[in-house]
């Protein structure tokens, strides 16, 4: 590789989970710098998402967009993300200003890159500027060198593919061999052509003896990476993974890890069986409770869903009996994969590939298009990863356009072919068009929010109707909030989860709050007050996982039996105690769970400030589509009329329920929309926000965030002391 710029450095040792160093690279100026952090930086911003938020808050302005040179692409693990003695470490965050939401986005990702970056001496990597020519970054802790190199040119297939390119880069950096002391992140050609490009995290799996991949899927982080002219980053460190955080109290870490591993071992095999099925096991349960998205979230259940249940993937595709942790030491081991799958569609038909996944979200993205073919799921999964595009946003955006076709907002002349639900040929064709940036794929690659505007204009001009009227209709079923497409859960019957998606600062991704079961099935949140409390607590604890470099699944998806003896079992507090012990043992702190929540709240408020700065932070930005609130159209109401009528009777009393079904549907939606607004009021109050969803002065001050920028912002928004 042709080295364009290189510095030599001496990697500092990790102590108590931190190196207190950020590697800063400006691709426009080809500058490489190592920033030493002041001691209080980690205390205030923790790591991961917190570091990304602070770097974006300080280093960008309200005029910064995804393609601005000053936009920063941050990759950061956290103090706990580097420890095989504790399950579910190894996560890191990719954060930036999003091409979809035009505000802060982050996405968490597994694999070895975050831990290796840490062992190579850095708590975070921050890339700014735009390179005129495509480059790669090499961070070599062994050679003690950091380089910007011209992106190598191999062949078209390798150069275009995020997985293929990553494999070549890793081999080239290591004398032709894959090794577990190296890891890479890459972005593929789809990230050049769609706003929902992903960052792939590639690592060598010593058990499967092949390269594996995980994805930072949400919000277009890969699109930013490619726009910067950055094709890939390779990191290397041969330092031992054992005690990677160099914990202050190693025995404390061992004890906390042993306790969690024991719970995971005992309980996963009695609960979700993530170690056997990965997250595909969720499909069946979602379908049972009408939560599995079908035909753009119109329906939550289908007689065909069983074709996509976990056992199908286990029998036909998953390699069995192989522990599949995406980082060392995780005994939940849910990162399932398949070898030697022959592609039957698309430009690579006939090629035999290894596939990592599918996750539940990818299965749901395919059912959302009305498709129930497991082979298509596998191929869709692989193509999205290779192209470097998000399986969720791709599926939801295609589904949105399918519904536009169904309801007559689009026709075959607009698309070039019949874009109907369940049409595998059309979905497959559109997938490749999106990645190539050609045909109708150019439109779809912009995502749902921009797609709505395109359809409104097209339909209004064709029919001589008002664009606003068409837009109002599209807003009912265009499944996005703040510009981000929904992840794969139906929220119609859970008011708490409507808030979980609506208030999520990044947009409707369930990593802030997933309250469907405790609300809809367990009935543990009967009042608006209960729902609002959950909508404050869960986003805070979940934020902490994204700041520390941890996976949430060993906590939230493996219920500790001891939780049954607590007042709020769904918080799984006995397991959270292990996490707090792990934190204290690693960093030498003496924090309580409440301290952890307070630390998280600082990050939450900071993210809210960034959203406000970028015009996505007020009550208007927390509004959700009609379909997320209830049956937006009569066909959805009809499909579960008995259920909805019963709900309406409970709300109104028997005598007030209209006899006419159309009127019942209309009244139901009115009631649901009104209730969501009440929820907004109560949640904002709980969070210390004004009724417009803006943090009050005292809330910002409480967390030490009232700098000059915050003062001006609040003042401009009319929030004064």
């Amino acid at each position, binding site marked *: 590789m042709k080295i364009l710029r290189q510095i030599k450095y001496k990697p500092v040792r990790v102590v108590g989970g931190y190196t207190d160093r950020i590697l800063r690279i400006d691709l426009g100026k080809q500058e490489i710098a190592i920033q030493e952090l002041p001691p209080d930086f980690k205390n205030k911003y923790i790591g991961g998402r917190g570091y990304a938020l602070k770097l974006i808050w300080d280093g960008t302005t309200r005029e910064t967009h995804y393609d601005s040179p000053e936009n920063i692409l941050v990759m950061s693990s956290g103090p706990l993300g580097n420890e095989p003695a504790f399950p579910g470490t190894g996560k890191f965050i990719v954060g930036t200003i999003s091409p979809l939401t035009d505000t802060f986005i982050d996405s968490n990702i597994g694999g070895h890159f975050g831990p290796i970056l840490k062992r190579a001496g850095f708590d975070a990597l921050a890339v700014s500027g735009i390179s005129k020519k495509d480059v790669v970054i090499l961070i070599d802790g062994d050679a003690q060198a950091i380089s910007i190199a011209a992106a190598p040119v191999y062949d078209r297939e390798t150069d275009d593919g995020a997985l293929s390119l990553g494999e070549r880069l890793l081999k080239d950096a290591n004398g032709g061999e894959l090794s577990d002391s190296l890891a890479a992140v890459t972005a593929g050609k789809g990230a050049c052509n769609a706003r929902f490009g992903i960052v792939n995290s590639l690592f060598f799996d010593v058990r499967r003896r092949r390269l594996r991949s995980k994805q930072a899927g949400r919000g277009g982080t890969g699109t930013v990476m490619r726009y910067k002219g950055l094709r890939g980053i390779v990191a290397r460190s041969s330092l031992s993974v054992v005690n990677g955080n160099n914990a202050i109290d190693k025995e404390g870490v061992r004890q906390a890890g042993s306790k969690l591993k024991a719970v995971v071992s005992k309980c996963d095999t009695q609960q979700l*069986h993530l170690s056997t099925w990965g997250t595909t096991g969720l499909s069946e*349960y979602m379908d049972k409770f009408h939560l599995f998205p079908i035909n753009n979230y119109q329906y939550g259940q289908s007689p065909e869903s069983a074709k996509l249940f976990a056992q199908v993937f286990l029998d036909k595709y998953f390699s069995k009996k192989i522990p599949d942790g995406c980082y060392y030491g995780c005994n939940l081991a849910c990162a399932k994969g398949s070898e030697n799958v022959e592609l039957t569609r698309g430009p690579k038909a006939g090629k035999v590939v290894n596939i990592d996944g599918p996750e539940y979200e990818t299965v749901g993205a395919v059912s959302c298009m009305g498709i129930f073919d497991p082979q298509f799921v596998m191929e869709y999964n692989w193509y999205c990863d290779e192209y470097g595009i998000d399986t969720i946003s791709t599926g939801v955006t295609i589904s949105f356009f399918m519904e536009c076709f169904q309801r007559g907002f689009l026709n075959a002349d607009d698309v070039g072919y019949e874009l109907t639900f369940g049409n595998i040929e059309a979905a497959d064709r559109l997938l490749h068009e999106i990645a190539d940036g050609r045909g109708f794929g150019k439109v779809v690659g912009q995502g749902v929010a921009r797609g709505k505007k395109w359809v409104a204009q097209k339909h209004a001009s064709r029919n001589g109707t008002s664009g606003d009227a068409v837009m109002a209709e599209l807003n009912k079923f265009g499944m996005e909030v703040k510009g981000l497409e929904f992840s794969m859960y139906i929220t119609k019957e859970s008011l708490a989860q409507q808030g979980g998606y609506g208030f999520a600062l990044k947009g409707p991704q369930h990593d802030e709050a997933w309250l469907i079961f405790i609300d809809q099935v367990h009935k543990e949140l009967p009042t608006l007050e209960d729902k609002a409390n959950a909508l404050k607590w869960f986003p805070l604890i979940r934020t902490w996982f994204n700041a520390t470099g941890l996976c949430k699944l060993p906590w939230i998806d493996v219920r500790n039996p001891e939780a049954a003896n607590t007042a709020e079992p769904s918080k799984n507090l006995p397991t959270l105690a292990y996490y707090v012990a792990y934190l204290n043992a690693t960093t030498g702190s003496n924090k309580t769970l409440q301290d952890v929540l307070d630390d998280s709240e600082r990050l939450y408020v900071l993210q809210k400030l960034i959203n406000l700065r970028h015009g996505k932070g007020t009550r208007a930005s927390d509004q959700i589509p009609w379909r997320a609130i209830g049956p937006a159209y009569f066909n959805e109401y009809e499909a579960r009329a008995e259920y909805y009528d019963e709900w309406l009777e409970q709300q109104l009393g028997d005598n007030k329920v209209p006899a006419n079904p159309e009127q019942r549907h209309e009244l139901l939606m009115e009631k649901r929309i009104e209730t969501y607004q009440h929820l907004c009021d109560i949640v904002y109050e709980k969070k210390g926000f004004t009724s417009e969803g803006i943090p009050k002065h005292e809330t910002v001050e409480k967390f030490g965030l009232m700098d000059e920028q915050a003062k001006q912002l609040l003042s401009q928004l009319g929030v004064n002391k």
Partner: protein
Amino acid sequence: MIASIKFLGMQRVLTNTDSIDMPINGNTMVSDALQYVRRQYPTLPLEERMILITVNHEAVSTGRILKDKDTISFLPLIAGG
């Protein structure tokens, strides 16, 4: 009177059936259904603290009296990844 016990996910794999019927009377409780399944499938893990019990899609306690044609499920405690 009959209640139906529905098996999902790994339970269906381990029992090799979608559901079984259980004869009930006016005093049969959910806890009896739990015992019934344990007797039929002794190796099926069903620790009360680790499952969500539903009758006709609603969470219930083990003391709930079963009615004719009720459908019972023993589900994992799903909390959303």
